[in-house]
């Protein structure tokens, strides 16, 4: 693989996306991006709808031109409906 191809490799682009999500202004370590066949699957739970939009926009920017499937959910904040009994 020549250097031109390496720079365009999906694997490296996904790795750079993860790095940017974690180390950039989002500080998002809970989002996972994986190469699945010819597409990229982005999964995880984020604290707010705003965070979800920020992550999606970063994903679109970093992975422009690639097929991306996103399944990001926003954290639930409801009270529990039961307790666990520990013996």
């Amino acid at each position, binding site marked *: 693989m020549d250097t031109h191809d390496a720079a365009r490799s999906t694997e490296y682009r996904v790795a750079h996306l993860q790095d940017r999500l974690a180390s950039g202004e989002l500080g998002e370590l*809970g989002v*996972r991006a994986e190469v699945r066949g010819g597409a990229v699957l982005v999964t*995880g739970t984020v604290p707010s709808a705003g965070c979800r939009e920020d992550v999606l926009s970063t994903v679109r920017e970093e992975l422009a031109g690639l097929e991306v499937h996103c399944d990001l959910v926003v954290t*639930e904040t409801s*009270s*529990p409906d039961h*307790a*666990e009994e*520990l013996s």
Partner: protein
Amino acid sequence: MIRIAAVGDIHMGPDTRGSLRPAFDTLPECADLLLLAGDLTRHGTVEEARVVADEIRGLGVPVVAVLGNHDHHDDRQDEVTAVLRDAGAEVLEGESTVVRAGDARVGVAGTKGFGGGFVGASAGEFGEPVMKEFVRLSRRCADGLRTALERLDEEGCDVRVALTHYSPVPETLAGEPLEIYPFLGSYLLAEAIDTAGADLAVHGHAHAGTEHGMTTGGVKVRNVAQPVIGRAFHVYHLPVRAHAGAGARTPTV
């Protein structure tokens, strides 16, 4: 019976201000205390810490917290700690605190903990200075946890809980990529818990992990990262046992 509410990884910021408060306001009805298992903020800024502080101020149950790696990101961990303490929370790092629940005394020992991995696949204190320091930090955290749990035993607590951000066991990481386990926890924490004894260990950090695990010594472990429990908090009911005496672990059948 002691009712322990716990959650970690709430990752608050200005845009989530007030989102947990409605659920937290129900705590006096269902819990004797609230444990916060670190990663309370996104970037560890003082502004984010103030959002957390407003969320927990005057809750009506004692709040005991440890910080997580996110709470260290802005290098303001001392200020973050001060903001949370000002809101009434106990923030532990190699320390312990005792909370009253009716007639019972609940001891909580806490540390952020650190990585390094688990038995058979763990980092060693060898090679480059930064690698040695990585393992030493994990060891210092675990030593602090063990000492804090032992202190609670000497004080004769009815129930002892180990509160960490990083995981003491691999079981509660199931769902995370195996390759990153060394960054998610350390067996040194479990060894400290099993050596000093505890009735429950609570941690966060692993968003894709699972809730239930156990140490080799039989201490129940719960991963309460908010994405894992899918709620504002979970509640665990712990029976009050007769105090087992210094150095002894409560026998189980």
